[in-house]
């Protein structure tokens, strides 16, 4: 099987869908001739032509607004927002239009559209290249929200998202585009080619939306994570020497609550991780659901390890990013009780 980076896996997903469905179309800022600032669409315009893969003006609400019109017509646009930090001009189109079109028209019009965007920090990008806006989408009924953590999942989830009949927000943790990141920014970087999840079939396959993956089985504590934080969790568990179960959510909305509840009922303890600011982050939703479903099994309060409630800083990035040591401390604290 081929070894792919996450970037290559995403490209492969679009390639597969462009070739097997003439309704699929890919566009966004710099995605056409150049192939995207992260090169996710490199080569696709040359292969499929300008009518299928093209550049747009710098207007995110146009990108999404056009996609909605095309999707309603019956096409399957898969568009790129250059950074998740720039999705806000399109927030109106996504939340007020795409998310509600099927419902408000009683199924006369639908919106099978994917909005891809690199998300998260860890690349010294400062406050406008590091944000994690997932909670701003999980609050919106009608959307699905996906975030892969491996090349294999990235391809399978993106194909599933393109094939999904409803709008999907597809968040790409850019810190792990080229390899898993275990939280040690000064350490050696590991490429995807050295990781089993870098094995990606060339052909069509899907990873179904709405299903979490258990990345590590464990008995003592459940860690809920997604994107980059899955690897930070792995390293923290090693360091802490705790037999934790690590669940990679993969899809945040709709959430695979069954897998989560089964785990927490078993372990009785739970820590939630994300890079986004804490207050009203997606961690809050996870905790609200878990405490309700597992109340009588809980042996300690649920804890969150998250980005601080401040703009993402440039120089103090590693004081902001939820570090292995912060996760270790949280694990220890939860085990204490």
């Amino acid at each position, binding site marked *: 099987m081929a070894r792919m980076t996450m970037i290559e896996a995403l490209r492969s997903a679009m390639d597969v869908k462009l070739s097997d469905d003439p309704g699929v179309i890919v566009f966004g800022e710099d995605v056409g001739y150049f192939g995207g600032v992260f090169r996710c669409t490199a080569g696709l315009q040359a292969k499929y032509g300008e009518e299928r893969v093209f550049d747009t003006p710098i207007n995110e609400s146009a990108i999404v607004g056009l996609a909605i019109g095309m999707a309603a017509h019956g096409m399957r646009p898969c568009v790129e927002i250059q950074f998740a930090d720039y999705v806000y001009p399109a927030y109106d189109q996504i939340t007020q239009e795409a998310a509600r079109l099927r419902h*408000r028209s009683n199924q006369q019009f639908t919106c099978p559209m994917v909005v891809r965007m690199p998300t998260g920090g860890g690349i010294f990008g400062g406050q406008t290249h590091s944000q994690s806006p997932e909670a701003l989408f999980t609050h919106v009924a009608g959307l699905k929200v996906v975030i892969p953590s491996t090349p294999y999942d990235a391809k399978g989830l993106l194909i599933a998202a393109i094939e999904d009949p409803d709008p999907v927000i597809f968040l790409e943790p850019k810190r792990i585009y080229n390899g898993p990141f275990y939280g040690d920014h000064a350490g050696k970087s590991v490429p995807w080619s050295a990781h089993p999840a870098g094995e990606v079939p060339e052909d069509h396959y899907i990873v179904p939306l709405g299903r979490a993956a258990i990345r590590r089985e464990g008995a003592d504590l459940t860690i809920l994570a997604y994107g980059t934080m899955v690897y930070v969790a792995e390293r923290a568990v090693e360091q802490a020497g705790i037999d934790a179960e690590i669940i990679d959510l993969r899809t945040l909305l709709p*959430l695979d*609550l069954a897998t989560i509840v089964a785990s927490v009922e078993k372990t009785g303890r739970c820590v939630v991780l994300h890079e986004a600011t804490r207050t009203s982050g997606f961690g809050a939703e996870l905790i609200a659901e878990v405490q309700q479903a597992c109340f009588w099994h809980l042996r300690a309060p649920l804890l969150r390890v998250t980005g601080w409630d401040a703009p993402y800083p440039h120089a103090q990035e590693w004081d902001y990013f939820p570090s292995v040591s912060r996760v270790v401390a949280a694990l220890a604290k939860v085990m204490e009780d």
Partner: protein
Amino acid sequence: MSDAKLTFPHPPARPNQPVDFSNIVVPKAGLLPVPPLDLAPQDAQPFARGLIRVMDDTGTPVGPWAEYLGEMPADDLRKGLRDMLKMRAIDRRMQNAQRQGKTSFYMQSTGEEAIGCAFQRQLQQGDMNFPTYRQQILLVAADYPLEPMLGQLYSNDLDPLEGRQLPIMHSARDYGYFSVSGNLGTQYVQAVGWAMACALRGDGKIAAAWIGDGATASNDFHSAMLSASVYQPPVVLNIVNNQWAISTYTGVAAGKSETYAARALGYGVPALRVDGNDFLAVSAVSRWAIERARKGFGPVAIEWFTYRAAAHSSSDDPSAYRPKDEAQAWPLGDPVDRLKAHLIDRGEWSEERHVQAGAELLDEVTQVQKQVEAHGTLVNPQPASPTAIFNGVYADMPEHLRRQRQEMGY
């Protein structure tokens, strides 16, 4: 200290001031030529700054656009007139129903009916309008049945949208009527996307975008104009300038722009400005614009110049912000009166037939209204089941919605 002072645009008259339309230039009918279908934006200046008019003061079609249009069959014109009268009957009955508390909300389109009415008749099956809330006439002119239309207005079990949407936010795919959004402007760029899909899939269809003068200020007016200019899809970008946006005078949306059509020119989108109360002018320019789009000559913007004669909505009372008699004084007259005069002039209509048609249509609407009201009103609500709330949020209902539906008791 400073020479810089801000300006604040004002309407010509406020309540208790004499009506004043001296700022509105009404050129003679028939002055402007018919440009070639591939009109370039640089050559569109006279059309964007002028005003295309076909009927002269006596209702006689004159000039190049009248020639372009040819003599419209009297039946077609009578159909248009009837549709406008039907729209007025609906407006009257539904405004009334709203006053009686039978529906929560209503919006009339009095004075603007010619625009959607004549435009719709130039479209083909499969073309798609992206209407605002004030374009119900597009449905009437497309012969959308009254039952679902009124059902939607009463949110009862005849409502094809099962009560999900505010009255007048219709959706009727088969009648070329895209689901109306309450958020202004958003659909303008979606129409451009739809038109791009038409071109990409080669289906020979076009899209028609609709926006009000006030909503041209919204960001997606810009994103739509720009996208249309860049990709040149088959879209007609309609701007209905009815002089008001709720209580706000059109000057606040226009600023120092000469016309809204001229704003489109800045994007390199050819644009024309048209007397929107002149049924023949609307017919002629619509035909031209739709043909231009369908033939692949790219987007075109049309500013339809008209006047919002009624209140903004059933929640609004315009006497608080403009002279009561402004509508009567509107220099472009009333679209129904003008078409009627033209038909009478052609010997194809009469005062008597007009009165009779009005009465018949009011009757028809009233009849249907009664039947539809039997299915529920706001006083006696019979909405679709509460489970409609959960249906169609997604194609397949996810677990958490299933749980919530259960929690609701279903």
